[in-house]
């Protein structure tokens, strides 16, 4: 992977400046549904297509942000501060 990713704070940088934080997931609100809990803990969609994910600019501003990336082409559709994706 050597694509360029835009940090909302620092601009376009090579992807090796960042740490990948995984897919944006929704945390269950209780332990009542064990299936939902374990699915949240251990399963990922691993979308072939646009995917919403967390990134940490570890060699830059050291801030978290979110990106929507097409996993087939590594085309970054949009980036935003946490919670700001449209």
């Amino acid at each position, binding site marked *: 992977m050597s*694509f360029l990713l835009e940090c909302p704070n620092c601009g376009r940088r090579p992807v090796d400046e960042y*740490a990948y934080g995984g897919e944006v997931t929704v945390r*269950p609100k209780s*332990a009542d549904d064990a299936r939902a809990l374990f699915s949240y803990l*251990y399963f990922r969609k691993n979308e072939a297509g646009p995917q919403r994910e967390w990134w*940490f600019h570890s060699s830059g501003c*050291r801030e*978290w942000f979110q990106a929507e990336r097409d996993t087939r082409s*590594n085309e970054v559709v949009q980036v935003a501060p*946490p919670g700001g994706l449209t």
Partner: protein
Amino acid sequence: MNRLAERRGELIDRGRTVTFSWRGRTVEGLAGDTVASALYADGIRVFSRSFKYHRPRGLLCCGGQCPNCLVQVDGDPAVRACMTPIEQGMQVEHINAWPSLERDALHALASATPAFGMQVGFYYKTFMRPRWAWKYYEKFLRSAAGLGKLDPNHRRDRRYEKVHRHVDVLVIGGGESGLEAALAAARDGRDTALVEEGLALGGRLAFSGIDGANRAADLAAAAREAGVEILQPAWAGGVYEGNLVPVYQGDTMYRFRAGEIVLATGVIEQPLVFAGNDLPGVMLGSAARRLVNQFRIVPGEEAVVLTVDDLGIEAACDLADAGVAVSAVVDTREGETDERLGVYGIEHLHGFAPVQARGRGAVSGVVVARGGERRSLSADLLVMSGGTVAQYGTLVQSGGSIRYDAERRIYVPADVPAGVRVAGEPVGTTSAVPACADGGKGKQFVCYCEDVTTKDVNLSVKEGFASLELSKRYTTVTMGPCQGKMCHRNSGLVMARELGVDPDEQRVGVTTARPPHNPTSFSLLAGRGYEPVKRTSVHHWHADRGGKMLWAGDWKRPYDYGTPEDETAAVHESLGLIDVSTLGKLIVRGPDAAAFLERIYPNRYGDMKLARVRYGIVCGDDGSILDDGTVARLSETEFYVTTTSSGAGGMEQWFTWWNAVWGMDCQIVNVTSAIAAFNLAGPNARTALSGLTDFDLSNDAFPYLGAGHAEVAGVPCLLLRIGFVGELGYEIHCPAAAGEHLWEALMAAGESFSVKPFGLEPQRVLRLEKMHVIVGQDTNAESQPLEAGMPWIVKLDKENDWIGRYSIEWYQTRGNRASLVGFEGSNGAVPKEGAQVVVNGEPVGRVTSSRFSRRLGKAIGIAWVPADLSAEGTAITLSDPSGASIPASVTLRAFYDPDQERLRS
């Protein structure tokens, strides 16, 4: 001097001789010569032995595309002699031959015993049985295979660098089209760089006689004039996402990011497949022309040119110009004698194809045939022009695609992605190329790198590998050092023939040309040998006083100061001082700071009083223990958090991530490297420290688990009264800049108590006596607090949600399966860390920490055991890696001072 008259386009400097050593013999060449050209001029014809059959091999391509001239240069294996300029004193050795290049034992064996015919799959079929013999086979095969020897003691004195570059346009290939494209871009005002791997700019022009050389020189001069940066000889390793191109030049890897990439990679001339096509003296037309036009060497006395296109005719003319007697041009095409050949009086045979090269050890002639008609021609130089293939690898790597143009019999670009442009028109081969010859005797080589013959390819088809992608994995064709440059097309042709399909239908497929484009040394990929290290503010004090400085994560820490047992005893009996600056340190501040920590940790912080410190573990949402440390409350809205030494970066990310998820009103600051920290521990700690501060250290004013700001030796500090090592102790945090001053002041204040600095190893013993776990040593990714002996820290009755809560609730319901417990050895033996806990000979757990405690006079440790063996006093058996069986009993309370009397004193 054995060279032709001086002429424009030659690369040699006739005024300067360079001597180097070839297999111990001194050889003289001219400045500008390559290892290959200097040796060829010296009369050397055999450069290497082939990979499998150890057949003698001579120059084939002279352009860095084939494996035939791989040599070892100054200890570097697999160096291409034809691409390496000679240097004074260079030591050049042959590879892959024993006992000598002239007489090779394996070649003798392979020729004398045809049954030894290492056809495709021989490896899997032959060495299967008897099974016990594999270790002997392997030894033999390992020594017979390979391309050179690495000297394990060889140390490089060269330094490899990586350089990051940005340009508007990067042109890959410095042939005519590449130079033209670069010139146009530069004249357009764009920042342009051009990469050419050859020893001369101009590509084919550079070895195409005076007119070509002139045109190449003019273009290169114009490009330089226009501001094109030319890297040469240098080569592009591949094309990666984001238009990233690694360019290798000398000892440097340039990481180019280009706005636009221009692919001007041109074509590669191909060999023909016939019996004996690997004899020394058989070479490509481009190779012969390079020797003649660039190095002014007469490559042979009597030549025959075998061709499928006009490139062979051009080669024949150049050879005739150089005074070589060209007895015939054998052309697979039909037609009239070419005018150019007519001028030289060279016979032009039409419709003939080569059947067999004659000669033993070197070529002496060739048999050619047209239908049933055969002709035998004598020659000491056999020149092949077997058509060309476009170098499409970089295009495919960039995300583009190719298609086969059946008219021109060549691959042409189909899709070219944005940001990439293809320059130049691939020169095709309009005539059909014979797949291979019929009726010849001996091996017909398809792949020179891996010694794959037509027989091998045919056998792979018979065995069911009907596409090139499958066949290559079986035969290894296209998988050698040339990566298919010399064999990709021919293997496809041979397969198509065996399958009985028209090669123009392209049913055989193509292989993927992956990076790197050329053999690349690991040194270039690795770059300079960085080993970044973090040092505490007292690093040099430790090192100067005998501290054994060892790696601890990114840090260097003193393991001990030479007397670990005395250091341990000092802490127990009087006073010790340890540098714990490596601990991670985070400040969490803001109106939501307490609420934030309540959500991060399984235990409570909202109820915490000011000036107190509390132990905490951090869990993942799966309940696993990620890290541990302490949290001190400095004010209503500010907390000082320590993490493990290796966990600082990870915890910073973890905290800031959840803060981003929750959007709480607090700020997290990593102050790890800004703050130094020392732990002064031992029964005399209070007395020693009180001499340096006005702060009231009495047990009433500053009890166990107190936290407070104090001035110590004139330095503003944060004192934490905690006890990882089990004695009365103060963790003193101060600005790193004042670290060394404070450390020295503490050592001086402790002098009357015989204070000893102590290292990591004494600390490990001391904490083990207290049964304090080390996260990452006693726990792993599967460890959760209920099983790790810390159910007390998990507050399932907290009102708020916290990370790991639901998983731990689930574990609570399920019950423990394993337990982390202490143990005491019953016979004095200390099991190694990693020893197994066994029941009836079966492993059921493992020892994570173990030491002999001099203080307690026994072997102690921590181990994971099954839940049913976790009761106090349970007898367990430990199996040491040495094979010894060690009896032990389970202990649940700290081995030392279980009631914390010393800690709270």
